[in-house]
């Protein structure tokens, strides 16, 4: 369980982690309950898939700045607690799970997280055999300028259980800067199934360092959809997944809508350690300026099958912007079937014209093409994603002709 590919392909330098910008924990919380959440903030949260009111959810956790507004399960078989409370309640959590899928001494981000007095974040456990049908939601919400959120989340799906998790990370609309680090550890038991959808909408200068580790046992499945609607100043993330049991599987879809001035580096290492393990990694990036690195590494240690696919659409390089795609595969076993592909292109003018001949305006045509490129049906995110794509299409339309 060691982070793998530090030595590989450093063709574009990724900036060093930057911890100096923000202060931590200086703020007395001005909002201390769900009822106090302002409508404008509720709207921001809804924009990343988290609904404060009027939606059926199996559980809700909201961290505002560094204050946990709520952490509550509404569903049988689902346990949802603030991580600090869970550590007190369950000794085994610290012994077997806490900082076990992500090592505390991995890097500066994890070290700082491990060093804080009381961790923030959630503990989720789905009991053996429990199929939680309604989605469980969690929000990490920055409402003040220049604060630091250091989050530690642990998700445990016991054997044969099922959970759909929506995590939204967002800054209040006028907040520009901040630091968000997250340690995310996920344990997926035998034949259990975790679908995680994470939506990010950050202020333009926020720095984000997620550190994720997921362990999947026999027959288990992990599906991750990560969508960055409004990228931060910097996001560096390289989630690690270990498919340790027979027939374990993982599927990652990463969608990044870039913007000028941002640096986004998202990888994903999947270790296929058991026979019959399968993995799919797909990156979709739309660059309108800013730097975008798409990576992914599949390591085949058994008779397994996996594919990594990076696709970028470069609409506008802006000042020194780019897309770099580095899909990687590595086999240690003769029956590992691994493949990769990568492509970067622009929007084809003849496709735009074709759609225009059906009556669409140029920007509508570009929107439809971007939507198609990203994969058209992303659940629960319709209007926000459409609005953001329309914004990008507007820019792209002006860039052309």
């Amino acid at each position, binding site marked *: 369980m060691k982070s793998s590919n530090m030595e590989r392909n450093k063709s574009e330098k990724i900036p060093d982690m930057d911890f100096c910008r923000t202060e931590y924990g200086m703020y007395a919380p001005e909002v201390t309950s769900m009822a106090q959440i302002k409508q404008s903030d509720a709207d921001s949260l809804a924009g990343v898939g988290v609904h404060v009111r009027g939606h059926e959810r199996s559980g809700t956790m909201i961290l505002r700045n560094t204050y946990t507004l709520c952490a509550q399960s509404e569903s049988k078989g689902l346990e949802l607690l603030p991580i600090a409370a869970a550590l007190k309640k369950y000794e085994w959590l610290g012994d077997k799970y806490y900082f076990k899928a992500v090592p505390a001494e991995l890097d500066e981000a994890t070290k700082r997280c491990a060093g804080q007095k009381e961790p923030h974040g959630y503990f989720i456990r789905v009991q053996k055999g429990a199929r939680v049908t309604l989605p469980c939601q969690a929000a990490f919400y920055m409402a003040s300028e220049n604060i630091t959120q250091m989050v530690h989340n642990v998700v445990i799906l016991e054997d044969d259980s099922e959970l759909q998790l929506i995590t939204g990370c967002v800054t209040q609309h006028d907040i520009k800067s901040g630091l968000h680090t997250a340690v995310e550890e996920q344990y997926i038991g035998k034949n259990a199934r975790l679908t995680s959808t994470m939506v990010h909408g950050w202020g333009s200068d926020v720095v984000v360092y997620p550190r994720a580790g997921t362990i999947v046992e026999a027959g288990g499945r992990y599906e991750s959809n990560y969508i960055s609607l409004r990228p931060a100043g910097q996001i560096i993330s390289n989630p690690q997944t270990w498919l340790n049991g027979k027939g374990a599987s993982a599927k990652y879809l990463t969608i990044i809508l870039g913007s000028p001035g941002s640096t986004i580096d998202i990888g994903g290492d999947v270790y296929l350690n058991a026979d019959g393990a399968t993995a799919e990694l797909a990156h979709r990036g739309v660059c309108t300026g800013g730097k975008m690195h798409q990576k992914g590494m599949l390591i085949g240690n058994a008779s397994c099958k996996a594919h990594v696919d990076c696709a970028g659409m470069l609409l506008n390089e802006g000042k020194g912007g780019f897309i770099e795609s580095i899909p990687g595969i590595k086999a240690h076993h003769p029956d590992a079937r691994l493949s990769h592909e990568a492509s970067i292109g622009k929007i*084809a*003018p*003849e*496709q735009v*014209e*074709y*759609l*225009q*001949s*059906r*009556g*669409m*305006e*140029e920007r*509508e045509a570009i929107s*439809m*093409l971007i*939507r*198609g*490129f*990203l*994969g*058209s049906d992303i659940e629960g995110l319709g209007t926000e994603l459409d609005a953001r794509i329309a914004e990008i299409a507007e820019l792209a339309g002006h860039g052309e*002709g």
Partner: protein
Amino acid sequence: MKKNTNSLEIRELCVQVDGKEILRNLNLAIPEGEVHALLGLNGSGKTSLMMVIMGFARYKVTSGQIFFEGKDITGLDITERAKLGIGIAEQRPPTIQGVKLKHILYYIVDKKFQQSDEFALMVKAAAMEKFLDRDINEGLSGGEIKRAELLQLLAMQPKFSMMDEPDSGVDLESLKLVGNLINMIFSRDSCRRINKKAGLMITHNGSILNYIQADKAHVMLEGQIGCSGNPHVILDTINKCGYEACARCMRRVAR
């Protein structure tokens, strides 16, 4: 009495593609309610004419004008022309990954119509029920592409429809279906002339003319309309004597 105006009129049109002159001083008039056929050798410029009428940027008008319902549309972009009521079923439409046939159809027709029986019947008429969820033109056979194109036209109900070889590579069975679709697009089943739509159809063998009556045919020769007249007479001549006969005839006219 109502004056018989032109749906489409082209005057002295010169067109270049990638710097190469493809249409030379072309003149053409299609009156309201009339459907004309366009014949001509491979490479004579038929597709280029349709593309320039639709407004595709690659086809550059160097001189001349295009009028639609009396309005000069030479300077309009594709969207504007489509909104005025011009539509095209292309010979070689692009494939677009991730964009499904239904996405385009649902753009064209509103929510209410999408759920109507009439819409379902349209899709059925084109035998495209199974293709709504397929990426546009991705992996479609030649005949399926034609049907997908015609279905989009049918949904748009343009006042002026252009079809580029709707009958090429279509089997006999499907030809009937395609003929029916085209009749629907032109509202040819209507007895009232006023409801009838106008259009232009490119065909090589004229087989589609057994299903839909064209009012007139034109022969394209080296980027010009060489000859115009009764579709059956012209087709007959070409079948018997080949396009060379048209060329000879044209040279005579020129002299």
